């Protein structure tokens, strides 16, 4: 594979695509949002169980490309247990990295496992694939009834 392509489709991403974590409907969720990317038709449902301002449990369902699926999978494993504000702050940093606003290796590394998505910045048309799950999760926190669109 070409190096730029390898950077995008890192093994971690391919793995999460094949075996997504927390890929299920959650019956006891008290927050829910539906994400939609009209550009590619991807749909993503995010289920959250919030307790005392913390993410007690989070899961997702839907159809999407490897990037969006892996992003939802990794996101759900990382934010589980975090307070809502911290998850939102993490999204801000994540967004800055995938859009290329943060490029310093050091800063990217602070994202931990999420750093595997840094390669997305070279593919502007795929940024929305990586951010769909996050947008949808933030919407779920606010319990927005409507479906969320990346547009």
């Amino acid at each position: 594979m070409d190096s730029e392509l390898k950077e995008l489709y890192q093994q971690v991403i391919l793995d999460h695509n094949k075996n997504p974590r927390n890929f299920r409907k959650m019956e006891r969720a008290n927050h829910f949002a539906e994400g939609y990317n009209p550009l590619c038709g991807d749909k993503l449902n995010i289920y959250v169980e919030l307790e005392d301002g913390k993410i007690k449990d989070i899961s997702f369902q839907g159809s999407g490309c490897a990037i969006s699926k892996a992003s939802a999978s990794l996101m759900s494993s990382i934010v589980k247990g975090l307070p809502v504000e911290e998850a939102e702050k993490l999204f801000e940093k994540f967004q800055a990295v995938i859009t290329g606003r943060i490029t310093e290796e050091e800063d990217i590394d602070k994202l931990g496992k999420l750093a595997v998505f840094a390669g997305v910045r070279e593919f502007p048309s795929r940024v929305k694939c990586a951010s769909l799950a996050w947008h949808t999760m933030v919407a779920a926190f606010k319990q927005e009834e409507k479906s969320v669109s990346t547009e």
Partner: protein
Amino acid sequence: MATEIVTQKKKEPHSFNVNEIRADFPILKEIVHGKPLCYLDNAATTQKPQAVIDTIVKYYTHQNANIHRGVHYLSELATKEFEDARIKVKDFINASSEKEIIFTRGTTESINLVANIFNKAILKDGDEIIISAMEHHSNIVPWQLIQEQKKIKLKIIPIDDNGDIIYDEFLKLISEKTKLISIVYVSNSLGTINPIEKIIEEAHRHNIPVLIDAAQAIQHLKIDVQKLNCDFLAFSGHKIYGPTGIGVLYGKEKLLESLPPFQGGGDMISKVTFEKTTFNELPYKFEAGTSNIADAIGLGTALDYISRIGLDNIIAHETKILDYATKSLMQIPGLKIIGQAKHKSSVVSFVFDNIHPHDAGTFLDFEGIAIRTGHHCTQPVMDRYNIPATSRASFAVYNTEEEVDILVKGIIKLIEVFN
């Protein structure tokens, strides 16, 4: 193999040599991600032959002026070139008069034009318009916009699992309230060639006019509007090797005469006072404002180019490529072709068991292969097959069997990486 024919041989009057044709398209020599460009996104837009590029450069270098009212040399020259292009379009689709050829920005604007004037002059609450389940959004949304103003009903001809319209269901949709049937000739996402001859004949039995969306047909099929007897036909220049931003609406003269103008402005008027305006004759009544002169002339050159090669030759070549691609792709385990209509043209849409079309698109791009992935502006078609998107390879006159092989090899590599 067909592509290995020696190019030095003297050209027969009707010989077809794909290598000679490829040499006419400079962009085909581009290198993408270190690989030779394998352009299989022709249903989105076709590449332009040097002749078309030269025409546009020549126009802006030597001929540019505004048309129709200037008395000076350049204005007369530009007017002649522009009107000659109209005659070329007329001849290409065998319209009976150049009055029937209206230049627009493209298929979308052509359909919107018809929707707009039908809304103004014909449609009333309770009226019905029939379209098919495989329409491009551009033949759905203009009618829905009318629904915001009037209670008109949009009736949809259903399609079967192969991607053919269900003709008997179409017959049931016709009523005395049907004011127009607007249907795509060739589906851009499935490749289906619709039986429009039959549909037009049936519609006329009930005195219903028919609009044909020929965006995906004009470059692949022989179109004779008089023989088809369609009332309107819309197409875009950029899908037939011409420039973007120019398109055509063909309409029967009598029908166009009876309908009100689309937009108001210069060129479409005969006399203007503050009390009353009389409209210009056809086709200018429907061409308000300065037209896209250069690109209309460029489209004329594209049509000349197609005619020189011969649509018969093009159809034979493209059929061969489509058959080869269909057979080759069908052999790939885990790949499913969406759209297996009996009559198809130049489009293969496919999905994989476990790979999303967007991942396929990005991966293949690094092999130099340009295909389209997504819903192809036909979301209802995707819903019909319960899929979010497809990957689509679409062919043109310059594609080769070797390029199909490159696609197949790329897909096999893709499957290896993702599974």
